[in-house]
């Protein structure tokens, strides 16, 4: 029994944090946020050089050959730093190809994903707004051993920056298959847009008779593969949220120590300190659920679906509450910094949108 990180994982954490502190401080994050695809080429190259992009790709295909616990360490840090980048998206694509691809597909796609010259993403959501096999209706009409895709994917993370998409579709009206589609393929049109989380970009992808040859279709049961990939996605997204929440708590606790009103630090009031204690409970419990799920990915795959659901459920339901807590502690000097954090919580409510009031640097 050992529910702790290895020395190497602790080093990965501190190296990551140092890199982000130096190369992507908040001022830089804000600049990247404003760029069309929320992606900075130089930073991306730096991330590739550190081996982040191929972290879970095996060494034979140019990756570091590490596991999902390592990836979660990394994503917790990028979540802490609110790093705008398609890191999660491009970590899921090689997961799909590594687990369900042929030897030829691995050879063809993994090395370029590992070195960052290719960016991948998972294109799942459709008009149904159902995240899962039941929501897939994109039609794949048999054609010359492969398929022709027609339909639209919506709210696809980082689709504007991506060079290849993993696309679940309904093959011949029957079963779900996963196709690898290159972004510049004939008949593919992407339309990017900003959403409430300004560190992320999403896009619609329209497929107009797009050919997917037989050697671009992943093997095995597509329904099971999609379910597995969505579990991995839940783990990855939860990791970012936990990291962001942890930073939220750190900032807010510090503010509660520094901010003096009625002649004492506001952190002395139980009305402030108790909600902060609750945030701590949420962060740590989410972290426990998260790391167990990450461990399950490779060591106990049969336990992953439940572990991932529990982790994401807890994190998602608490992060908006915690963001709101961070607000109420720091108001009225709500900085853009902390509102940016809140956006990551995917809170469905407009009150977490970035404030347009003059920003202060008190919290940042």
């Amino acid at each position, binding site marked *: 029994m*050992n529910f*702790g990180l290895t020395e190497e994982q602790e080093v990965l954490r501190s190296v990551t944090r140092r890199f982000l502190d130096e190369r992507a401080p908040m001022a830089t994050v804000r600049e990247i946020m404003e760029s069309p695809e929320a992606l900075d080429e130089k930073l991306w190259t730096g991330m590739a050089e550190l081996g982040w992009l191929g972290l879970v790709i095996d060494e034979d295909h140019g990756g570091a050959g590490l596991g999902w616990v390592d990836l979660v360490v990394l994503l917790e840090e990028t979540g802490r730093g609110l790093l705008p980048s398609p890191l999660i998206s491009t970590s899921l694509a090689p997961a799909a190809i590594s687990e369900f691809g042929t030897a030829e597909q691995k050879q063809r796609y993994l090395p370029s994903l590992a070195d960052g010259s290719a960016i991948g993403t998972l294109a799942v959501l459709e008009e149904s707004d159902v995240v899962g096999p039941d929501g897939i209706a994109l039609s794949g009409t048999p054609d010359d051993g492969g398929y022709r895709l027609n339909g639209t994917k919506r709210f696809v993370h980082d689709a504007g920056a991506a060079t290849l998409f993993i696309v679940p579709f309904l093959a011949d009206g029957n079963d779900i298959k996963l196709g690898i589609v290159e972004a510049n393929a004939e008949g593919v049109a992407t339309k990017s847009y900003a959403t409430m989380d300004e560190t992320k970009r999403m896009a619609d992808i329209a497929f107009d008779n797009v050919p997917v040859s037989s050697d671009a279709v992943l093997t095995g049961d597509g329904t099971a593969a999609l379910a597995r990939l969505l579990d991995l996605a839940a783990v990855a997204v939860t990791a970012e949220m936990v990291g962001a929440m942890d930073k939220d708590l750190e900032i807010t606790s510090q503010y509660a120590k520094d901010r003096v009103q009625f002649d004492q630090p506001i952190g*002395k009031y139980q009305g402030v300190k108790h909600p902060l204690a609750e945030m*701590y409970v949420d962060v740590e419990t989410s972290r426990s659920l998260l790391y167990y799920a990450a461990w399950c990915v490779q060591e106990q795959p049969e336990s992953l679906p439940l572990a991932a659901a529990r982790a994401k459920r*807890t994190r998602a339901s608490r992060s908006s509450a915690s963001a709101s807590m961070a607000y109420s502690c720091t108001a009225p000097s709500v900085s853009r910094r902390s509102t940016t954090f809140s956006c990551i919580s995917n809170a469905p409510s407009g009150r977490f949108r970035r404030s347009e009031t003059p920003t202060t640097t008190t919290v940042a």
Partner: protein
Amino acid sequence: MDFNLTPEEEAFRDEVRSFIREHLSPEGRKDPNFMGNWLKSVREKRWVGFNWPAEYGGGGGGIMEQVILKEEMSKAGGPPLGTSMMGLQWVGPAIIEYGTEEQKQQFLPDILDSAYQWCTGYSEPGSGSDLASLQCKAVRDGDEYVVNGQKIWTSGASYSKWIILLTRTDSDVEDKHDGITCLLVEMDSPGVEVRPIKNMAGSSHFAEVFFDNVRVPVKNLLGEEGKGWAVTVSALAHERSGISEVAGLISQLAQVVQLAKRTRKNGRPASEDPGIRRRLSKADAMIEGMRLNGQRFLTKQLKGEKLSSETSINKLHRAFLAIEFGELALEIQGSASQYTSRPADEDDDDLGRWASGALGWPAVVIGGGTPNIQRNIIAERILGLPKD
């Protein structure tokens, strides 16, 4: 990171499981001598006081073995490993750490043999969360202490033979944690009076205990005079890891889920109601979170690090769940949940079964430190916020 057991740990788990299969059969449980036989056989296994050092009659079980034993027993719904609960949990460990050789000889075997009950005389009418402000007074008089004062919320006082009692021997101290003295007092001593308190669930587990010139021999002093606070701190530290509670919580949740499945609301099972489902799934994730938090605490302990304030996390989850299970069961059951016992002319076993649980939460929520105290601990000791 590795959640697997070592081969040795697996072997021990299998040993526990086969013991359970042998001694906890449904037929065996119906035997009138079941409990006596059970206590005898777990005592022979040295599983009573399993974490106590072997030289004092305990099992000398390592941290990991303790967790395995407790978890397997809890999963099997087995009877307790020994019935001198307070003795095993608080008094024995305190005597092992602070007791004289004579005290060890006198008390430890009886606790392990489930010979009688102990109660803990800590809280007073004016001293609950702020326990160190306690006023129950002990004055040295020759070879005896003379005790005057009152304790309250003393669990099991009416059926205990001994009480471990915190008294104040010195009021003239700068730090109120000083001047506290721990005495071991026989409950049938002249001047001890127990008045049971009936709680809102109808049980009289708690009591007030009054001390009127009770004379306690000095040989029953535990630890040093004036240094009694240390004795309680050591004892309280055992309570908060939370791992062994999880199996019990899983079984409680399963019972509420079953209730939701067999209870119909608006023409369909309550288990199909999205609101109910959401609450059940929240409880499920929280329990799993407690289990995994517990594993992290356990990892720390296995590395030889001391656990501190982080265990308050699970205490807060535990408090939430105690209230939530009660409320959820009542909400599922609807109006009929108001029965506190099943009416004689009804045959639905659910009637009267849930109200007492819903009314029993204060013992769980308040005992060992209220939620607000836990929040203070986290905020001040972990987050470093200024003290009140």
